[in-house]
């Protein structure tokens, strides 16, 4: 038997060896840009947490194995304050100061649109969100940027077609939206899809800040609509719109092609939420989600899980896998591999499917599975699982 002191020495050396290997692993900085202050903080935090979860998972399994080397991914996250200038400064700092080659985020269109020129010029791979089609559809044809969450262009047509099939008697739809960047892009898009499916459309935009919608709702009821679409409203506003609509006596159907805001609506509107139908970007009840939820709870506690968090986790995992498959951290090669990731399943959304050639001129839109849910008896019930058309 080894003596006690020799055992101690052995374990010391073993620890040293292990930690030295850990230190010998090179760090791979992954940049993150999102709002960490001001009104958009919930989404920025979702981005940060989703990325961190993916990074922690990779590190727990020994690091990112690329070709012959192993890297330790590390998140470098900067606040863009949800503005164009903020995104620009954050991107500049990440690309030029921190020398980062892969960035996930930002979230809002103004920020993404000012980040893209910086990352394209720096040959930096960008996995972003943002509602504006111009993010992918531009002169440069988006060589290095990809959009990793569905926008209205992806889920809108499929959802409205589904509604038309299931509720053929509906004639007139009301769209109430904020007059911000998202509202102003999404409403014309939805209007076109509704008209294509045989609906008459009434729309009204409000200035963000006020949460008193009863005058607009009274205006809407006077239009005799039979469907009220909460579209791009933020969860808080969507919940108030629904509650105030019901309180004002609106009896027609309410749904949301956007959001999702289901949790907030149930919380704020209570029994008035009965019958509400919505898009859901993640099925928190599915078996595949449980592991994700458990890990999230361990790291971040009991608060509401922002539904975008799994999407960012997904994006980061796809990025890691494409780096692995490319066998190098050279961004040109990673970009090429990323484009060929169709079929890879990161575990939450099914196999990767890139699309968007018809809409944007380039196949850099990740087509994610999404769900239609309904509130029945205070609970969220899944009605259908849909996939964006690939065109």
């Amino acid at each position, binding site marked *: 038997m080894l003596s006690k002191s020799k055992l101690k020495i052995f374990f010391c050396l073993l620890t040293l060896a292990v930690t030295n290997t850990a230190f010998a692993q090179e760090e791979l900085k992954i940049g993150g840009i999102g709002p960490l202050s001001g009104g958009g903080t919930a989404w920025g935090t979702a981005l940060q947490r989703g990325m961190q979860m993916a990074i922690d998972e990779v590190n727990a399994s020994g690091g990112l194995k690329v070709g012959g080397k192993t890297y330790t991914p590390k998140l470098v996250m900067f606040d863009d304050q949800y503005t164009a200038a903020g995104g620009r400064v954050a991107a500049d700092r990440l690309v030029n100061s921190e020398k980062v080659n892969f960035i996930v985020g930002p979230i809002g269109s103004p920020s993404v649109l000012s980040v893209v020129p910086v990352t394209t010029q720096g040959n930096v791979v960008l996995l972003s969100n943002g509602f504006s089609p111009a993010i992918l559809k531009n002169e440069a044809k988006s060589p290095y940027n990809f959009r990793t969450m569905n926008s209205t262009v992806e889920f809108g047509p499929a959802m409205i077609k589904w509604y038309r099939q299931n509720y053929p008697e509906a004639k007139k739809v009301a769209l109430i939206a904020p*007059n911000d960047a998202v509202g102003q892009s999404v409403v014309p898009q939805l209007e076109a899809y509704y008209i294509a499916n045989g609906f008459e459309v009434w729309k009204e935009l409000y200035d963000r800040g006020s949460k*008193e919608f*009863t*005058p607009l709702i*009274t*205006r809407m009821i006077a239009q005799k609509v039979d469907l009220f679409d909460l579209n791009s409203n933020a*969860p808080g506003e969507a919940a108030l719109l629904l509650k105030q609509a019901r309180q004002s006596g609106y009896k027609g159907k309410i749904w949301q092609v956007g959001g999702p805001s289901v949790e907030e609506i149930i919380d704020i509107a209570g*029994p008035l939420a009965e019958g509400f139908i919505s898009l859901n970007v993640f099925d928190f009840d599915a078996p595949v989600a449980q592991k994700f939820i458990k890990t999230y709870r361990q790291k971040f506690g009991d608060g509401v899980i922002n539904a975008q968090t799994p999407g960012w986790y997904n994006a980061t995992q796809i990025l890691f896998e494409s780096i692995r498959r490319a066998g190098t951290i050279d961004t040109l090669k990673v970009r090429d591999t990323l484009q060929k990731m169709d079929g890879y399943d990161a575990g939450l959304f099914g196999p990767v499917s890139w699309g968007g050639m018809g809409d944007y001129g380039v196949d850099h839109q990740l087509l994610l599975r999404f769900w239609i849910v309904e509130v029945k008896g205070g609970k969220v019930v899944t009605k259908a699982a849909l996939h964006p058309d690939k065109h």
Partner: protein
Amino acid sequence: MFTTDILSQVVINGLSLSAIYILVALGFTLLFGIMKVVNFSHGAFAMLGGYALFISYGSYKLPYIIALFGSAFTVALISLIFEFLVFKWFYQKMFQSMIGLMGLNMAIVYASVMIWDISERSIPSPDQSILTFGELSIPMDRLWIMSVTLVVLGLFWYFVTYSRQGLAMRAASQDLEIAAAQGINPNRIYKLAFFIAIFMTALAGGLYAQTYALSPFMGERPLMVAFIVVILGGMGSIPGAALGGLILGLGESFLSTFYGGAVSSFVSFGSVVILLILRPWGLLGKPE
């Protein structure tokens, strides 16, 4: 579009809006009337009132009336610290008070972000029922707010007009030196006025948060509303706050329902600008 049904609903909506607006503006106009302080941190105190109600009614489930008035009382009590640390330096100093209190607003709002995080919360409503009269709908909780406003308005007006302290406050607002010569202690009167003002503000904030949503940034809108109401009605005038609130609430309801949100915003901002240019002391105020 202009049917009696719609018109009556517009009036009801307008009255319920006015009730909230008046309540929000009362504390603001009191602080200006007595201490000549433009309270740019008004929204922050409303927000604190919201969180206080959230804690007392949402988390601790105290009976509603106790929670509502108790939380406003507590916020007012705790805010005396701010009176001592901050407001005291700015009484009677218009310019410094504006920027200094903007600073206080920033500090309170972002401290709240650090304490409570930015996500929006909701406060459960004590009564979710809806009254219907034919085509008209009035949610019970809005009726409740209208009654609270009437009660508070009445009590406050009575206090200022008929009580000794109220008389002292009005004297202090007209001429501090002479009032002091009459034996009125300016410090005590200011503290009392501050306490009452914050009490009403926190109360309004609690009801506002309950009706809409609670977050550290929720105070921005109450601040703007308070400004507009008080400019319309006259700074430092209680009947002015009531009148201003009615005009703003009914006006918004009417314009938004019949002409849409954009028109309503342009007209309300535009009229405030015009009123400021032509009659800055408001409809019921006095020129300085």
